[in-house]
């Protein structure tokens, strides 16, 4: 059957007309118009805060738009709440899964659509339907497993199954690959292609341009609440999309020259961490970083990255040895805390800047001094701090790091994610560290600021600082690091020179598959 002809004659599956939405003074969506055809995969890209998620939440009935109309399959529908959206055949897979963790898969699937007072009929019905769906779309998952026992990839399948169980014809996926390994992401894209072949309409929200290029038919770009363009994917390219997102030309990959690497600056040997529940989070991790070198730690979130950062940053205790320029420093007990790390010249940009890096209800100038506030430059004498001078220092650093607005007397919570991150970077880099430990430097940061932050990290490396970069974004690892180590299940499962490896090789390592080629570990060959 030639469905293509049908598509063009019929009304679009989804049509948005003049959607606007404000939260107080912030206009999240401004007069958005969009048409998506049945059976197509439509991508929506945009920076953080561009209004993508708000728009989809309106379509799913989570928020109500101030103005505008929604047509589903040519029919005007007033989506007042999620119930109406579900009735209209819209299903949504949220970025943060909306699952009840101590429920089984089946219980989660039927929740909200039980159809009868007793739940047993629905459970039985779902069990049959799930096995059908599993074979049709390769969405296998054990129906009796508890959600908390499933991997993230499987939890996501449950979310998709939930939508399909509600007979969704339209599936909205919000940043679905953020928590997946490359292999899991590929599997997801295959599922999406199958779904679209069966006539489901799919909207994919993402900030990863590569995903847009590989899986979508059409793509819309959002910027500051407006939809700036809708294009056919085959007629565009990542560069164009990035420029539409940011509103100016951007470098997708930072320029990086080879540098002379120096002596080993940071050496870590047999680092192990056991968390409070007695679970071993890191097992005998060893690596080193030389002066003027960036070592990237890749891996899927939750494989020990947090523990590694906290152990090195002096936040939580560990065993093993850690040396800075040959001098051993304590990993637990006395002398192992965040301040003494800084005394040794180790700066730490934590992965969760809002929790560990900043105090959101304090001013920018106060945050600029945190952690170094005992130093002479911020104090008048032994008793009094020099607030005036601290404000001046903050003003200078904020200008230097292009932090907007450049006003020290502004609460940190009023800055955007990118600017908050720049405040942390300004504080840590201006102390001229010997070693920089940085976790997820661009998480939740917009493209324009990513470019700036990456450039700052490269500049620091060129000045001879040893940098440990922990990131779950493989693209970031590739564009910044000189060497890559992959963390899996608390162990370093492999190490490669960035230029000599590729995404599929690292992807296998991230999934825990060690290669059997018997190659010499890279670490040995350059040590």
């Amino acid at each position, binding site marked *: 059957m030639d469905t293509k002809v049908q598509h063009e004659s019929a009304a679009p599956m989804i049509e948005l007309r003049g959607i606007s939405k404000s*939260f107080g003074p912030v206009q999240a969506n401004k007069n958005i118009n969009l048409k998506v055809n049945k059976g197509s995969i439509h991508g929506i890209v945009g920076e953080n805060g561009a209004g993508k998620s*708000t728009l989809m939440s309106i379509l*799913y*009935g*989570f*928020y109500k738009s101030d103005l505008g109309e929604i047509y589903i399959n040519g029919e005007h529908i007033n989506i007042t*709440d*999620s*119930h*109406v*959206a*579900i009735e209209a055949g819209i299903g*949504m897979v*949220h970025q943060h899964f*909306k*699952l*009840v*963790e*101590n*429920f089984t898969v089946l*219980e*989660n699937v*039927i*929740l*909200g*659509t*039980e159809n*009868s*007072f*007793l*739940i*047993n009929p*629905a459970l039985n019905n779902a069990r049959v339907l799930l096995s059908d769906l599993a074979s049709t779309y390769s969405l296998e998952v054990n129906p009796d497993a508890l959600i908390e026992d499933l991997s993230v990839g499987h939890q996501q399948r449950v979310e998709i199954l939930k939508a399909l169980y509600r007979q969704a014809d339209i599936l909205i996926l919000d940043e679905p690959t953020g928590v997946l390994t490359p292999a899991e992401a590929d599997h997801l894209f295959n599922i999406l292609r199958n779904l679209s072949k069966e006539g489901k309409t799919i909207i994919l929200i993402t900030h990863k341009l590569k995903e847009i290029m590989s899986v979508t038919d059409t793509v819309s770009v959002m910027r500051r609440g407006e939809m700036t363009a809708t294009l056919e994917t085959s007629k565009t390219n990542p560069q164009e999309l990035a420029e539409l997102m940011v509103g100016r030309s951007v470098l997708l990959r930072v320029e990086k020259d080879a540098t002379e690497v120096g002596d080993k600056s940071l050496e870590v040997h047999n680092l192990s961490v056991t968390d409070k529940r007695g679970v071993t989070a890191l097992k005998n991790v060893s690596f080193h970083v030389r002066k003027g070198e960036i070592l990237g730690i890749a891996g899927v979130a939750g494989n020990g990255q947090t523990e590694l950062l906290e152990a090195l940053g002096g936040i939580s205790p560990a065993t093993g040895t850690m040396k800075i320029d040959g001098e051993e420093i304590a990993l637990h007990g006395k002398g192992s805390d965040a301040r003494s790390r800084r005394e040794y010249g180790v700066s730490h940009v934590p992965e969760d800047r809002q929790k560990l890096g900043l105090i959101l209800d304090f001013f920018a100038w106060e945050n600029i001094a945190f952690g170094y506030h005992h130093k002479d430059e911020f104090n008048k004498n032994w008793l009094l701090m020099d607030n005036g001078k601290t404000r001046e220092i903050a003003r200078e650093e904020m200008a230097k790091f292009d932090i907007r607005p450049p006003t020290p007397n502004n609460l940190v919570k009023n800055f955007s994610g990118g600017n908050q991150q720049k405040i942390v970077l300004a504080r840590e880099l201006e102390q001229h560290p010997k070693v920089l430990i940085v976790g997820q430097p661009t998480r939740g940061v917009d493209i324009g600021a990513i470019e700036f932050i990456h450039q700052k990290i490269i500049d620091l490396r060129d000045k001879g600082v040893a940098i440990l970069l922990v990131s779950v974004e493989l693209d970031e690892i590739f564009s910044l690091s000189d060497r890559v180590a992959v963390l899996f299940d608390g162990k370093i499962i492999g190490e490669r020179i960035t230029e000599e490896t590729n995404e599929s090789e690292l992807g296998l390592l991230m999934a825990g598959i060690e290669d059997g080629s018997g190659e010499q570990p890279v670490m040995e060959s350059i040590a």
Partner: protein
Amino acid sequence: MDYLTIIQILDSMLRLSAPLIFACLAGLFSERSGIFDIGLEGKMLASAFFSAAVAAATGSVWLGLMAGLTASMILAAIHGFASITFQGNQLISGVAINFLASGMTALIGQNWFRLGGRTPSLSGDGRFLPIEFPFAESIGKIPFLGPIYSELLSGHTILVYVALLTVPFTWWLLFKTRFGLRLRAVGENPEAVDTGGVSVSFLRYRAVLICGLLCGLGGAYLATGMAAGFIRDMTAGKGFIALAALIFAKWRPAYALYACLLFGFLEAIAIRYQNITIEGVGTIPVQFMQALPYILTIVILAGLVGKAIPPKAGGEPYVKER
């Protein structure tokens, strides 16, 4: 200690556990839905007062029960209003309800009856009377099993049987019905319920009102079944003991029954044996025996009986994130 004494202690255990079972299940409904409720005590007290007052005035215990349930459910609705609609702090709202009930019952009681906060003693149709099971007299003569029927099971007021039946009913409602599935879900992850197209607020209001209803039954039983009238602050911490039992029971209906029976048992022992003399140790004072339920409460709340994981979304008002 002979066999009949044991049966009699167990009999008074059932009698003393009933208000705890009501309050504990009340808390279970509320907390399973994500609304913490330390106002169980206040709701029981209000129900105890109004049931006794109306029963005294009208001579009908059933009208009294209706009044008690209404009072308790009004307080429950206030708690729901504060913590669901206005997203206030659930602990503070609960404390406020306890103070409100304690002060209000004493004040109104004095104003109406001039008996120092008491209500007049109830008699006849003004209170719930024991129900004798058929043939209790003759079956009681059967050795061993007979007394279980005639002494232990027979001879309680209707509310004791209601309390015991509420336990399996709660289990069935929670684990076998749509309402129960949603109720358990909303206490764990309200977003899952919301995105499933189900109203979080409506679910929680229903849970809170069920909580009010059960507290009301517990309170009415105290004043019109167990005692014959209302006395100032007669709940004496039962609402808090019920909360401890709920934690002990890890928010499960069957365990809640066992926990409440344990507390009831301790109370029954304290009433039966005013002074226990143990050879070579001396006499255990009655005050110690009476304090036992409260000591056990502290032990449980201090987490000395293993880890109890409360419903994950408990205590947090549900606010849609942007």
